[in-house]
């Protein structure tokens, strides 16, 4: 039997959508709760990429279960956000498949800029992050207790 990972293309398709799990209220635009803030796509210090999943190869339920499995004292699953791969490119960011053994739908949005602690991003990168935040759509989780995704259809973006 062909492993699932082998069935998923290594190259992102133009029609693909990417899902980012949201854990912080600072990543949700308070004025427009269907939108994100630029920091939602900011990598931590020392790396230039953020994790996403490829919506063509993962369900909203699986995204939620994975998000909830990462809950901790400092980490609470808030919801899911989606962005089209073409919008990532149009924002002058990049994305690539980065399959993991436990999650072949894994991908990364990356920027080519590695920041250290306390180092501000170049203004051009902040402009890219703002574009991504504007183009992404946020879907709040209406029922955090459930293991199923009961929010709006995340394919609708």
């Amino acid at each position, binding site marked *: 039997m062909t492993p699932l990972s082998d069935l998923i293309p290594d190259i992102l398709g133009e029609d693909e959508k990417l899902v980012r*799990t949201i*854990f*912080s209220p*600072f*990543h949700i*635009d*308070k*004025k427009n709760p269907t939108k994100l*803030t*630029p*920091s939602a796509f*900011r*990598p*931590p*210090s020392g790396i230039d990429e*953020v*994790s996403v999943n490829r919506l063509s190869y993962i369900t909203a339920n699986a995204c939620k279960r994975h998000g909830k499995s*990462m809950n*901790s004292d*400092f*980490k*609470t699953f808030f919801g899911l956000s989606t962005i089209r791969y073409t919008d990532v490119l149009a924002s002058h960011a990049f994305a690539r498949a980065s399959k993991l053994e436990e999650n072949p739908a894994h991908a990364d949005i990356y920027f080519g800029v590695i*920041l*250290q*602690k*306390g*180092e*501000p*991003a*170049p*203004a*051009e990168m*902040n*402009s890219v992050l*703002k574009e991504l935040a504007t183009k992404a759509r946020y879907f709040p989780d209406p029922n955090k207790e459930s293991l199923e995704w009961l929010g709006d259809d995340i394919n609708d973006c």
Partner: protein
Amino acid sequence: MTALQINPVLDAFDVAPEEPISSNSRAKKQAILRFIQQEIAVLKQNWDGYGASPIEQKVLLNVRFLINKLPDLLSSSLEKDTILPNPNGTISMEWANKDNELFLEIGNDYSTYYLKNKGKIKKINNHFIITNDSEFQQFVKNLNSI
């Protein structure tokens, strides 16, 4: 032990009482500084769920310096919702209206900002030293233009 060592965050966000500002603007400034102190300065390691660092103490001091130094109208026009912590310990701020936006990120040793008009970048400074008077005045001029 100095007061700064006892409680650096609280100390960093005390607004100087002798500042000659109107009570309304002063109240707004204090509300912004209080928000940063209570909501952003307290963030712990991994606050974003993806390994984010706490906000750097030097960044917090720079933010306090900037907000106190800005003309009253500009600092009090800053909205809490547009002050954002970043996962590498910096803080971003945004001033925007229908056609214009100024996006500032404050770091330990320098800051960066861009000014956009109708979605197009008009000005960029990738090495803004907030303690440099001429650079600060240029920043204020850009901020006044939106």
